[in-house]
């Protein structure tokens, strides 16, 4: 426990002893701020002249401002996450500090959790920016605080999930550039998974000729893959959370996602002990 904390402290400090912490937070604050301003102005225009935009009354604040804003913030978090995670292990490997890290009296879980907590702390710093934005709207608009907190937690969960993915990739690579690039590619793939699934035809529509009794198995397998692709899509699981609706499957998706990649991270670290 003490060791986890020691690692976490060192890792978190490292973000701000090098430019990367400031760069990531700065870019996030800038883009999130621009998005906040644009979406808020857009909403203001819509609510001043609802009929011009095809509404009969003032559009719902949650649906037409909060939701798009939080999804936007979540996307930036996810696409900046490789910059947070790339150094976690790849930097140690590259500089040779891994040799010290792995010969200090540390358990693998202390290393993994310490580093992951530090990345989460970075994410929390980024969430402060979102928090400020939400505090501003909460001051002017009569909105349930629960919806705000729910949205914030949703974005955090999604970020936490993708940090674990990046952490795992960082364990497999020797340089930070490779780690970031591979992570970025995987994130893109996950986001496109949903699109791909939508474009796939329904299972009944694919008729396979001449396979006889294999037909139901093939169709069944295809259906599983299609559903998996649909459910894998990361953005789909942020939608409802940012509308203030907490569905168990969305929370579970992110938690399982993080748990899965943390588990792989453990295995990746452990592999050094059996690659004899």
């Amino acid at each position, binding site marked *: 426990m*003490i*060791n986890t904390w*020691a*690692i976490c*402290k*060192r890792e978190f*400090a*490292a973000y701000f*002893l*090098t430019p990367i912490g400031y760069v990531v937070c700065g870019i996030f604050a800038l883009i999130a701020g621009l998005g906040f301003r644009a979406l808020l102005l857009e909403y203001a225009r819509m609510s001043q002249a609802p009929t011009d935009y095809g509404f009969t009354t003032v559009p719902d604040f949650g649906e037409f401002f909060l939701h798009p804003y939080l999804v936007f913030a979540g996307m930036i978090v996810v696409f900046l996450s490789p910059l947070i995670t790339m150094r976690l292990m790849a930097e140690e490997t590259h*500089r*040779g*500090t*891994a*040799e*010290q*890290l*792995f*010969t*200090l*009296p*540390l*358990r693998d879980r202390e290393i993994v959790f310490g580093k992951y907590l530090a990345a989460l702390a970075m994410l929390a710093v980024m969430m402060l920016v979102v928090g400020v934005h939400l505090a501003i709207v909460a001051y002017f608009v009569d909105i349930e605080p629960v919806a705000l907190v729910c949205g914030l937690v949703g974005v955090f969960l999604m970020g936490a999930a993708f940090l674990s993915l990046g952490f795992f990739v960082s364990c497999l690579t020797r340089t930070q550039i490779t780690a970031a690039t591979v992570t970025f590619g995987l994130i893109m793939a996950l986001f496109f998974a949903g699109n791909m699934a939508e474009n796939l035809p329904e299972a009944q529509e694919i008729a396979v000729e001449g396979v006889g009794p294999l037909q139901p198995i093939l169709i069944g397998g295809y259906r599983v893959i299609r559903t998996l692709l649909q459910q894998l899509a990361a953005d789909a699981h942020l939608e409802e959370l940012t509308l203030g609706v907490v569905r168990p499957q969305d929370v579970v998706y992110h938690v399982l996602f993080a748990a899965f990649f943390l588990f792989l991270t453990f295995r990746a670290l452990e592999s*050094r*002990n*059996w*690659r*004899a």
Partner: protein
Amino acid sequence: MIEVEGLTKHYGAVAAIEDVTFRMAPGEIVGFLGPNGAGKTTTMRILTGFAPATRGRATVAGYEVHARPLEVKRRVGYLPERVPLYEEMTVAAFLRYVAEVKGVGRGIRRAEVARVMARCGVDEMAGRLIRNLSKGYRQRVGLAQALVANPPVLILDEPTVGLDPRQIIEVRKLIKALAPEHTVLLSTHILPEVAMICERVIIIHQGRIAAEHRVDAAGPSLEDLFLRAVSGDAAA
């Protein structure tokens, strides 16, 4: 204190070390001597639990390295060949981190860090960023992190590389002074260094132990021993 038996390590088809066997008594300073690529670093990495062996047993301070890595790591101070330093930290902050991870209590951490800094002569650099240190100081900070928490076993991979002559003398004195309390295994390819610091020398060549000798002013010169060992005559 250190027992190595039949240690073998293959990297793919290449054997880095083959059937290495030796023993070290508590308080002994042993020089691990060999040409570059002889397998010194590989052996040390196995002893410190950084890399697993393909075959064989290594026991440090009574614990088998592969079975009880944590117990071994608590008792070993290790200076790798490529000194591991977090460049963005100051010397003192880095050593405080190492002390914390090595389980030095909060109350005595500051004193412990001050002790190793003084011992390795880096106290005047305490507040400097490691990034800005010269090679010699980096080497000494590396030595300092190995000494933190006063582990009974020290494994030092080429501890005097990159130091200037005056620093080399200081570090040699320092290592020699560690002797009765600590068991020290140090690798080097500088022959006089072994003669000056070590009580015993193990010569390793092409992954195998080629010779093992007590360092003795009256006996054959180290140079002869070494040349004979690496030219292959020692096997006869």
